Every structure is written in structure tokens, then in C-alpha cells.
């Protein structure tokens, strides 16, 4: 048995019984990273020495009987979480020299639970992208291949490094962040599971901000259960984040065996977009059938403002980003390019430090907030956002959860969809509405495309009802019995 084939739940059990040691498990993953990361580029900064030291401490804890379910579990940390003493780049040149003197709340909770950090995972620059090609540290390669083709595929984004690392077995699990689909879409593209919890469920403290009203941390892992175990630790109120919610965190693993019998599942008719890949629609129908067979009551629902989701998202998110990224000015931290005066220094620093997609979004955001345009764009977008939230609230008066596809296609090739940014933005069409509404949503691998690439289904729940999301996701996972593995993987 290879240590790399264990799920998080299995590894946790084996660590607790003493069957395996954290050091051995971590060493296996470090080797896997050494072997495959040069090809996949899933990690920007691997931290093997730190990981081994943490594994050693985990072993001591396991022996002392003070271990938690995550003690000794080797994970990848999206390089958007500030980690004390470990370089944190947000995949941007502008933060290339930045070593935070503080730790994000979520990574601190995982650390405190004894999880081992293998390194900082690659992502789209400042989490802006759906393909991981905007990283200043190079794109991540999807470990999956189209049948009979060696073309490099994207892992999705922005949490592409996290997704690729988990799929290719360079990490047992990973943290991600999701602003408009950044956990769910890469999870779907790489055949793993990932959940964007309710906005406010996990603290944003210490996460490099993209769009504050949308950003939310969440786990990415090989099974729904693994995700539940991780979220148990990552979630919780934090007084350092005013938008984190002071609500109790249940044991999410208890929800996994709830089943779906008697649960009402909504199928939003507006998600049947014209021109959607028939394979995706077929998978969706398959998901509906699985849930019916498992005893769920499946009903059609309406989310009438869905069609405005992308437009609203691409106003709100860039608006907040344009402001959030103003701090990268070369004055206090990060990269600086000197100039002949302050303005010149700003211009040179930001011109050199930000990539084209980040610049594009800063400009869009600046524009929509500008005098004379604010009402037409930002204000209107906020109003429509409220309507989208109301759509979900009304739908959840009838149903317990909503089932949709995660993405409109399977993973695409590196270099495809590059001509027009809007084509790229369409990747988020199914994931963005839940982000705008702040509701929890999970992607679960449910089948393969005709080309042999993984496809995911998305389960959306009510605010702070991740338990139902986990219950429905577990039912899909069981029914789908997804066991395909990517071509590129550590063995």
C-alpha cells in the first residue's frame, strides 16, 4: 500500500493507531513533490524542512495522546494565506519578497490542530482567474490528460495549485479560497471535492484580499468526508474579522451519513443555459436521478436573476479589488521600483508588479466606482446582487439544497480561451451566484467527459447549512463512485 493512496480520514485513523507515522507520511509527500512539482508547478514555495519539523512534532503529539484528527496530515496551503516566516506571494511579483510577520487565522487553526504544511500552493495572481495561468510564478498543469492527447490542460483557478496538488497526490488535502468559484471550478477540473462555506463561516483575517465581500476560505480534498474534517477545524468566529459570523460550528462529519431521503432538492431552470455542453447537461440529469433513487424529492425551481450573476460579479469583485490592491504601492512592503517622485514610483512599481489580468480588473474596478459611473455600475450591481440573494432565499423556502453543474465545461487546454477575457469569465457562470448570495456550495466529482476528463456537480445550501450540503454531496459521491485517477500522479 502506498501512503499516497490514503484519504485524509484513512490516514488520520492510521496515524492514531500508530500504523503509520506522520514523518513517514510527510516524507512520502515531500518525495512526491520533488518528483512531480517541477512538471506540475503546483507549489510556488515548497517547505519540506518545515514540514518535516511539523511532522516530528505531530508524531510526538500522537504518542502523547494530544493529537487531533488533523495531526500529522500533510496539506498544501494556498499562497494567499499569510504564513508567519514563510514567503507569501499571492502569485504576484509585487509580493515576491514578502514574508509575513503574522499568520492567517485559518492557517493558524490548522497548524494548531497539528496539520503539516508542505508548502505554499500556486494560484492565479491575487486569485484572479479561472485557469491558474495568471500566476507570476508560471501556470499550473492539470494532472489529467484528454484521452489520447498529451496537450497540457489547465487545472482551473484560482486555487489551481491546491487542486492539482491534491489530485496528483502531492498533498493529502489543501486549503483554497473562493471568490466566484475558485475552489469549486478547479475541484471539478481535477476530479476532487471542495467546498466554499457560507460567507462568514471562516475568518478572512490574514488572507490576502481579492474581493472582501465575496472571499471565503474552504478546504479541497479527495473525499467529501475529508472536506468535512478540514472544515471542522478551519471554521469559526474570529473577532479579528468583523464579517466572520458568531455562529456555532457543528461537527460536519456527522452530516455525512444523514442521507437525502425526504430532502427536497431544487433544480434551477435558469441554469439550463443554451449552448451548454450536452455532456454537462447529461451529468446533471444523472445527478438528479441519483438523488431521486436515494429518496430525495427533486423539484424544479426558479432563480430568475441568474443571468445577471456574471455581470454583477465582474463589477463588484473588481471594484473591491481595485481598492484592496491599492496598498501594493511599494512604500511599506513587497517589491518597489524607484522613480523620480512618489507618483512615478507608484506607477513603475505597479506596472512591474502586477500582471495583465490584475491590471485589467483594477482598471475595471476603478472605472465602475468612478464619479458619474458609480450609479450605473456599482450601485446597480449591488441592487441586482440583493435580488440574487432574494432568489436563493425564496428558493430555500421550498427546497433544502440546490443541484447544478459546477462548470460549463471540462478542463480546457493551456492557451485556450485566452483571446477574450470574457470567454474565460464564463467559466464562473454556475459558481458566481452562490458567491454573490454568500451561501455554501460544494463541488463533487461525478463522472468523466467523453475525453476522459473529470466533471463536477455543485450542491448549494442555505446560509450556515453546510451540513445539508455535505449530506447531499456525500450521497452524490456514493452514487457516482468516482474512482478515476489522473495520468500524472505520484505513486
Amino acid at each position, binding site marked *: 500500500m502506498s501512503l499516497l493512496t490514503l484519504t485524509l480520514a484513512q490516514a488520520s485513523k492510521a496515524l492514531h493507531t500508530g500504523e503509520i507515522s506522520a514523518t513517514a507520511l510527510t516524507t512520502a509527500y515531500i518525495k512526491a513533490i520533488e518528483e512531480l512539482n517541477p512538471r506540475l508547478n503546483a507549489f510556488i514555495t515548497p517547505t519540506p524542512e518545515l514540514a518535516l519539523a511539523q511532522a516530528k512534532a505531530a508524531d510526538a503529539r500522537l504518542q502523547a495522546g494530544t493529537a487531533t484528527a488533523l495531526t500529522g496530515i500533510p496539506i498544501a496551503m494556498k499562497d494567499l*494565506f*499569510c504564513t508567519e516566516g514563510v514567503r*507569501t506571494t*499571492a502569485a504576484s511579483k509585487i*509580493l515576491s519578497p*514578502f514574508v*509575513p*510577520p*503574522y499568520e*492567517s487565522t485559518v492557517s493558524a487553526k490548522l497548524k494548531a490542530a497539528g496539520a503539516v504544511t508542505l508548502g505554499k500552493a500556486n494560484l492565479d495572481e491575487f486569485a484572479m482567474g479561472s485557469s491558474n495561468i495568471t500566476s507570476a510564478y508560471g501556470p499550473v498543469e492539470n494532472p489529467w490528460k484528454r484521452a489520447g492527447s498529451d496537450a497540457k490542460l489547465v487545472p482551473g483557478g484560482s486555487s489551481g495549485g491546491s487542486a492539482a496538488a491534491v489530485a496528483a497526490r502531492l498533498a493529502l488535502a489543501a486549503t483554497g479560497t473562493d471568490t466566484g468559484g475558485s475552489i469549486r471550478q478547479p475541484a471539478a477540473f481535477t476530479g476532487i471535492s471542495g467546498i466554499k462555506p457560507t460567507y462568514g463561516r471562516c475568518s*478572512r*483575517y*490574514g*488572507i*490576502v*484580499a481579492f*474581493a*472582501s*465581500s465575496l472571499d471565503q476560505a474552504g478546504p479541497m480534498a479527495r473525499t467529501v468526508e475529508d472536506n468535512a474534517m478540514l472544515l471542522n477545524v478551519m471554521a469559526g468566529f474570529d*473577532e*479579528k*474579522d*468583523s*464579517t466572520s459570523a458568531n455562529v456555532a460550528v457543528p461537527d460536519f462529519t456527522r452530516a455525512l451519513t444523514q442521507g437525502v431521503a425526504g430532502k427536497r432538492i431544487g433544480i434551477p431552470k435558469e441554469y439550463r443555459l443554451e449552448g451548454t455542453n450536452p455532456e454537462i447537461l447529461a451529468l446533471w440529469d444523472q445527478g438528479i436521478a441519483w438523488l431521486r433513487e436515494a429518496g430525495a424529492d427533486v423539484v424544479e425551481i426558479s432563480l430568475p436573476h441568474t443571468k445577471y450573476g456574471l455581470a454583477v460579479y465582474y463589477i463588484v469583485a473588481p*471594484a*473591491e479589488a*481595485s*481598492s484592496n*490592491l*491599492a*496598498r501594493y*504601492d511599494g*512604500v*511599506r*512592503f513587497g517589491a518597489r521600483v524607484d522613480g523620480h517622485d*512618489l*507618483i512615478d514610483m*507608484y506607477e513603475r512599481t505597479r506596472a512591474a508588479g502586477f500582471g495583465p489580468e490584475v491590471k485589467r480588473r483594477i482598471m475595471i474596478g*476603478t472605472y465602475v*466606482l*468612478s*464619479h458619474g459611473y*458609480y450609479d450605473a455600475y*456599482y450601485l446597480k450591481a449591488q441592487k441586482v446582487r440583493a435580488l440574487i440573494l432574494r432568489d436563493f432565499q425564496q428558493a430555500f423556502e421550498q427546497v433544502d439544497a440546490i443541484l447544478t453543474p459546477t462548470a460549463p465545461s471540462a478542463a480546457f487546454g493551456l492557451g485556450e480561451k485566452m483571446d477574450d477575457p470574457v470567454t474565460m469569465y464564463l467559466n464562473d457562470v454556475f459558481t458566481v451566484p452562490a458567491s454573490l448570495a454568500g451561501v455554501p456550495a460544494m463541488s463533487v466529482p461525478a463522472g468523466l467527459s467523453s475525453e476522459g476528463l473529470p466533471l463536477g456537480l455543485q450542491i448549494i445550501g442555505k446560509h450556515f447549512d453546510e451540513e445539508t450540503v455535505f449530506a447531499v454531496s456525500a450521497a452524490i459521491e456514493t452514487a457516482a463512485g468516482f474512482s478515476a485517477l489522473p495520468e500524472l500522479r505520484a505513486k
Partner: protein
Amino acid sequence: MATYTLEGRTGTWEIVVGLEIHAQVISESKLFSGASATYGGAPNDHVSFVDAGFPGMLPVINRECVAQAVRTGLGLKAQINLESRFDRKNYFYADLPNGYQISQFQMPIVGTGIVEIELQDGTIKHIGITRLHLEQDAGKSMHDQHPAKSVIDLNRAGVALMEIVSEPDIRSPEEAGAYLRKIRQIVRYLGTCDGNMEEGSMRADVNVSVRKAGEDFRTRCEIKNVNSVRFVMHAIEAEAIRQIEVWESGGEVVQETRLYDPSKGETRSMRSKEDAHDYRYFPEPDLLPLIIEQAWVDELKSKLPELPDEKRARFCAQYSIPFYDAGVLVADQTTADFYETVAKGRDGKLASNWITGDFFAALNRTGTTIETSPVSAAALGQLLDLIADKTINGRIAKDVFEEMVDDGTMPADIVEKKGLRQVTDTGAIDQAVTKVLAENQDKVAEYKSGKDKLFGFFVGQVMKAMQGKGNPALVNEAVKKQLG
């Protein structure tokens, strides 16, 4: 009320002024971080990662700063908004770490209120308050510390400010000065801002326009960051004169931001409307709307100190002192407290006269303040007691007071040590009178032939002979009796 106007070539102009006062909130820590908000410290000593705008850092509202804003709003008799909101004001500057200032743009914590000002001629006028909102201060850039570099001190960055905006109700430099002083007096009473304009903890942006009588408002200019009452008054006059010249020479005043140069006594353009920043305000997504409970507002209200206007009215009623005197005594909390300690259980008018007269004169002369004065309220009270129980007379009291100022000795000790106790023994007084009249027989003759004024001379001579210790009433009586 005398109307303030300026005479131009084309006629008489009146001025229209509104003030935006930035008052730094007194609090232990900053508006959105736990870093110390106290003045001073080595550069960048009071800076948290939140203040420095580090990646992933988030603001958390400081409850005490909110309480201070509510107290100030209550002091301005203003509406307290139970729901308010923070917005981001975006602009780049080296001492603005986030690239935006967290402020309240659309929904301030305090709405409309009213402030009463008193002018020199005793006129009372009301100035409307438009709003008060909370916002962060920026840091400080210094360009003179290094030949090629600018240095930045972020100690101030993130400290809470209250911006108090007035209606354009002010019509003269005097009114502007009175308004600014009144706001300063109120925040000092409330303990919400130290009002120290020299240290920059209070400063004003002054909006000025001019118009002919009966006209609507004309274009205004904003004079930024004026840091004394005197400069505010001068800046208004200088700016009004400039605008009148522009209008009268056929030009048009353009809306712009200007700076006041006190050394030249003039304002000059800082940036025009075209160059004005587009601040791209939008709701701060890192903070929830600020919701406060009416019960909490009520609790803060119940614990507010007595404010100057109320205190002044009470002093007039309780101590039977003139309105003007009461105004002097309530100018600041310390003086008012000092007065009340002295006046309590004593003659309020006498206490007021002593404090506004000899006591203030002594402070001026010795360059001390109430806090550092050698004469305590208890000592001054004792002196009044000695007068009241006729241990000493008023004239001796003045001498005793001077000694108190010199070395802080209690008046009773001085009286005892120097034997200044008033003589009320009529035998001794009669004896002194007899002696004085005998020595001045020529004057007695003049008096008797009708020169009544000499009466005072005899009294004075008697008092002198008694080293001033004679009871004035008894001396008067004895002189009158012996002169027949």
C-alpha cells in the same frame, strides 16, 4: 446684532461660511486597531499591521471611539443614527497605507444638530450642525529629514477623527471664531477631544463664499487645514476680500481647494475642481453596518457631564451672578469646577468677583494656570470665609491674597501669624479716631464748614493708624459720631 459686511467697489458684500472641523477622538487605541492612539512616541512606534495596511489585515471597530462620537453628537444636541455605515475613500498617498481612508460618507453616525454661540455684543446665534462622522487619520510624511528621501511616521495613521460639519450659517469671522471656540469648549467638556489646535488634534477646513444681500449662494472655496482660531478668522477675511476682487473685476470665483498662508495673510490655490480627486467612495466591505442600541445611547446620555450652556444658566440661577460673569466662569471645565468649589456655601457673587478679578490677575502675573496655581480653591474659600465672618476686612484680604500667591500659605495662617485680625473693639477704634481728629483740627474745621468729602479722609487716616485692621463699618460709625 451688528451685521458684518465688506465694502467693495460695486457695493456691500456679505460672507457665507461653513466649517468642517476635524477633531481627534480621545481614546486608548485607534479606530480600527489595538495600537496606541496616544500622542508622541518614537516614529512608527504606535503602528499595528492593520494600520500599516499589510496584506490580509482587517479593521475591527473600537467601541470607545463610537461612544465618543455619540457623546459628542449628544453634546451638539444632534440626532444619533442607530445605524450608520463606513465607506472607503480611495486615493493614493504615501502616508495613507491602505490607499483608502475608512470614513463615513453616506450614513454618518450623527445627523443634524445645533450649537449656540455668543458674540462680543452679547448676541446669541444658532449655528446648524449638518453631521458628524467618524474616520481614520492618515500618517505623516516628512520631506526635510533626508536629502533624497521622504520619511513616513504612521503613529497617527488610523487614529479616530470626528469630522463635524456645520451648515453655511456663519456670516462673519467673529462668528466663525465663536463657533470654533464653542465646539472646542463642548468637546473638552465631554472629554471627547482635547481641542489642542497647536498639536493638530483639532483643525478646520473653511468654506467661504461672498454674495450681495438677498442673493443665493455663490461659488465657494475651501481653505484646508487651518490650525488656530485666529487663522480661521484671518483666512475668512482674506479669502472674502480676494473673492470680492475677483467678482468685481469681472471674473468668476472657481470652486477649488486653497491653503492659508499665515505669514503672508493670504490664501492660495492648492488644487482646482478639475484636479480634485475622484475618491470612488463605496461601502467598506470589511465592516458590517454599525448598529447601536438606543439603550446604550441613553446610558451614555445619562452619564454626560453638564455642558457649558446648562452650567452657565445654573450658575446664574444658583449663585445669583450676572450672565456675562457666568460665561467667563464656564469657559472651561477647570475654571467652572474651581468656581463651584469656592462658591459652594458662600457668597457666589463675591466668589465670582474674586476669581475673575484678583485670582485671574494673579494667574496672568505669575504665568500659572488653575492646575499649577499656588492658591487652591480651598485656600480661596477660606479667605472668603475670613471676610464673611469679619475676621478680616476686604482691604486686608487683598494683602493676605498676595501673600497666598507668593508662597501658597493658607490665609488663616497668614492672618494669625501677622496679626491681621480685624479690630472690632469700639474702645480702640474710638481712641484712634480721637487721635486722628486731634491731629487734624484744621481739616475738622473745614469739614464742619461744609467740606463733606473730608469724611473719607478721616476714615482713611484712622484705618492707616490701625494698620488697616479696623472694621470699616465700625470705623465709619465712630468717625461720624465724633465729628458730631
